[in-house]
């Protein structure tokens, strides 16, 4: 009858694709094997509660010595740096938290994680035990912050412990997004956004030192959703913004806060006249938070990302549009629509030239800031693309040559439970012959030089490109690495970190790192610690008697 086609297509083997029990503990790439190094998770009892309600996101926090931002590498000047550390430690002790801080040190098995490490070798003759105490006392190290259900969990990135060292429970709503600023000037470096729209800023160090299961010393913004009760979708510190941060909500609005200002302000903003248009409104009183509201789009904003230098802000949302703003000018510069469906994630290249987006069309999209358009579509995911990131530590094998072909490496993860790695070599991407505007001659353009956008006014959003107009990329490798749909990917100097929606995190060591790193210490810890460690150990080591 009408439906004959359907009967004939029943040959494909869907059943064969059922969950394969064993996932591999490595994946191969042209440069070698990435090996599963650590897994991080959370108490399993939470799973049923969290299922389907929240999606786990991960933030990496590198806690440095204080004051951290400008530590010169030369030995003499590191004296001052370390004395800074000491005074910070003293300050902490003096606040009345001292005993608890030390309790934290003991409780987390600090000595275990450091004993016999290569770092101590590099310290030379100093007493090893004293350096251990100090490090943990200070909470220094690299941490993973992730949300599951009604809790925020904190794990030590460089320990083999699967379980988190700290959990913070929220009674009012579920935490859904977070951000860390490792150059924060005063104590508050961690932002947490909730499902209810509430936002907190806290000091990560202070949370680590506290033994309780509640947030301590927090500033509370948008209390009970007083300014905006839409779910927090994404939160970010403004790079170099002197304590300014932005929160994107599910109703298409983004708010700018300054942590130096009062959390419980009473900012009010005028009614949005045209829901379809971008508009910025500033708070009437300069002392209250939030200081500004950006109405970006109708419907949820799903993710935001600042360029490394903080000049540009990219947003993606339910309406499928990528929007790029000049942050300080509060201006929409450019943007464009997905092939179809919502966009779910976005990320900048280190040099600010490209933006990756991923979404419900299963495509990884490469947006060029120079061309102000999509220059490539990555095809290879079998489901929605939920996380994208450039590998800023990647250096292409032939980059020492003329330097004309810049190759970028990036990764993407999707709800197909897979990690895909891609190479982007802009010279190889040639936009196919286009039918230009009526009357215009067909033009052949490459990704690096194009004049198409010259006549496009600033702030114009491009419609969805046609399938045949966008060059396609194929993934370098594609590996199924989790059993659950993935929600994020992060590249660090020595590893790739992947996380699934349900809150299981895997850390994959880069080729070359996995072999040499049998101990718990990673390169970042080595590099930060080797500068200051000798002095620290001798000076602040006085607390070692407590061990």
């Amino acid at each position, binding site marked *: 009858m009408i439906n004959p086609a*359907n009967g004939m297509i029943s040959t494909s083997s869907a059943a064969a694709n059922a969950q394969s029990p064993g996932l591999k503990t490595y994946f191969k790439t042209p440069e070698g094997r990435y090996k599963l190094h650590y897994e991080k998770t959370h108490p399993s009892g939470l799973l049923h509660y969290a299922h389907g309600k929240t999606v786990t996101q991960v933030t990496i926090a590198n806690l440095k010595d204080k004051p951290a931002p400008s530590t010169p590498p030369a030995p003499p000047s590191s004296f001052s740096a370390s004395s800074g550390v000491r005074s910070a430690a003293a300050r902490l002790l003096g606040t009345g938290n001292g005993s608890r801080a030390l309790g934290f040190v003991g409780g987390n098995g600090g000595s275990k994680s450091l004993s016999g490490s290569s770092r101590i070798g590099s310290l030379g003759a100093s007493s090893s035990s004293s350096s251990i105490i100090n490090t943990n006392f200070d909470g220094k190290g690299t941490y993973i912050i992730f949300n599951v259900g009604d809790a925020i969990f904190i794990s030590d990135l460089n320990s083999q412990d699967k379980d988190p060292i700290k959990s913070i429970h929220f009674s009012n709503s579920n935490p859904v997004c977070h951000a860390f600023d490792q150059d924060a000037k005063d104590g508050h470096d961690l932002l947490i956004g909730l499902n209810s729209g509430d936002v907190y800023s806290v000091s990560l160090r202070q949370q680590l030192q506290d033994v309780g299961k509640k947030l301590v010393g927090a500033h509370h913004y948008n209390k009970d959703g007083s300014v905006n009760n839409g779910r927090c979708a994404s939160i970010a510190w403004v790079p170099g913004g002197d304590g300014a941060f932005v929160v994107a909500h599910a109703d298409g609005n983004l708010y700018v806060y300054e942590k130096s200002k009062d959390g419980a302000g009473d900012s009010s903003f005028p009614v949005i006249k045209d829901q379809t248009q971008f508009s910025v409104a500033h708070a009437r009183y300069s002392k209250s938070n939030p200081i500004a509201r950006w109405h970006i789009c109708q419907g949820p904003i799903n993710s935001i990302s600042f360029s490394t230098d903080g000049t540009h802000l990219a947003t993606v949302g339910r309406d499928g549009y990528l929007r790029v703003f000049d942050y300080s000018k509060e201006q929409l510069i450019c943007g464009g629509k997905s092939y179809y469906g919502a966009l779910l994630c976005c990320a900048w290249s280190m040099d600010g030239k490209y933006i990756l987006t991923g979404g419900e*069309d299963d495509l990884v999209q490469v947006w060029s800031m120079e061309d102000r358009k999509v220059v490539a579509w990555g095809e290879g995911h*079998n489901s929605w693309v939920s996380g994208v990131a450039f590998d800023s530590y990647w250096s292409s094998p032939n980059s020492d040559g003329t330097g004309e072909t810049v190759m970028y490496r990036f990764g993407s993860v999707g709800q197909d439970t897979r990690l895909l790695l891609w190479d982007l070599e802009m010279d190889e991407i040639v936009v196919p012959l286009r039918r230009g505007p009526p009357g215009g001659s067909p033009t052949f353009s490459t990704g690096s030089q194009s004049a198409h956008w010259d006549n496009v006014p600033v702030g114009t959003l491009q419609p969805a490109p046609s399938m045949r107009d966008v060059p396609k990329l194929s993934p370098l490798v594609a590996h199924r690495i989790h059993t659950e749909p993935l929600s994020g990917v992060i590249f660090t100097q020595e590893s790739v970190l992947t996380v699934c929606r349900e809150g299981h995190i895997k850390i994959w060591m880069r080729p070359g790192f996995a072999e040499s790193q049998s101990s718990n210490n990673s390169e970042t810890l080595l590099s930060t610690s080797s500068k200051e460690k000798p002095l620290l150990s001798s000076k602040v080591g006085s607390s070692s008697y407590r061990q």
Partner: protein
Amino acid sequence: MGAAGSKLEKALGDQFPEGERYFGLENFGNTCYCNSVLQALYFCVPFREQLLDYYANNKNIGDAEENLLTCLADLFTQISSQKKKTGVIAPKRFVQRLKKQNELFRSYMHQDAHEFLNFLLNELVDILEKETQAAKSDPETSSPTEKTANGPKNGQLNGVRKEPLVTWVHTNFQGILTNETKCLRCETVTARDETFFDLSLDIEQNSSITSCLKNFSSTETLNAEDKFFCDKCCSLQEAQKRMKIKKPPHILVIHLKRFKYIEQLGRYKKLSYRVVFPLELKLSNTVEDADIEYSLFAVVVHVGSGPNHGHYVSLVKSHNHWLFFDDENVEMIDESAVQTFFGSAQEYSSNTDHGYILFYESLGASNKS
């Protein structure tokens, strides 16, 4: 029931779309398969309007005998002409007629919603065709069903001279697939067209509809026991076969094959796979890169862990609001709630509500050029 209705009215407030009616349908013992599909069809606006138009124009034709078409039209008219904005209606006549018409649906057993949809659409076409033939023999009454938007290519490509009748059911739901077979010896490509009212897709764990559609159109090699008889070579040959969409339908109905016969078990099993479906969709497996955008407006959801029992509900988008229809209950839901019906990433999960039939409507504008 009345309370649920007023609750919905309260929820919509002054956003209640003018002239729209949201009515639950009473269940007559396992008739949720029927109710869920009827709601999806009711909120398929072009279909509803054309059915009501047709009914208005043909009502007086000598009080024709009752059939599924008249029963469906009656039901839709009954809903749309209610004074109240919300409430419950008993689709009694329709269900009785359905049971009379097809013994498959006569029992009180759990039925397959997709089978019902398929049966209903084909039945409607049969009735319309019969009426047209009757009208042709009686030239006095001209039927509005005659050749509406009969694509010029259709007749010839099917290789049949007799022009197929295109009813308003066809203009809404019918698409054309082309089945291309390439003989690997002489490289001749044989194309055979077939029409469809819906696409039945094999599904995989943790995949998307986009990916399932790609697999649907992936190239398949015919060899060994399954060779292709090439007319040019006059013998069985190895060949490559693929299925593409030649004419995308206005209303794209996608059926997920969640009920699979497992040979080892000797019975059907429900696949609870997580298959994500976007609220907007474009077809990549078309003959021409048409880039036609579709928008999701209804989902028939199967609730339950097995194929022989369970429940059907539907999600419907009407005037930019999402509604949840569960027999007589109607509730407003958030758009983001749609994603709780994707399925389970793990085989054993407490979540048993799975999208089963998806209804997408073409947004019309194709960005060609």
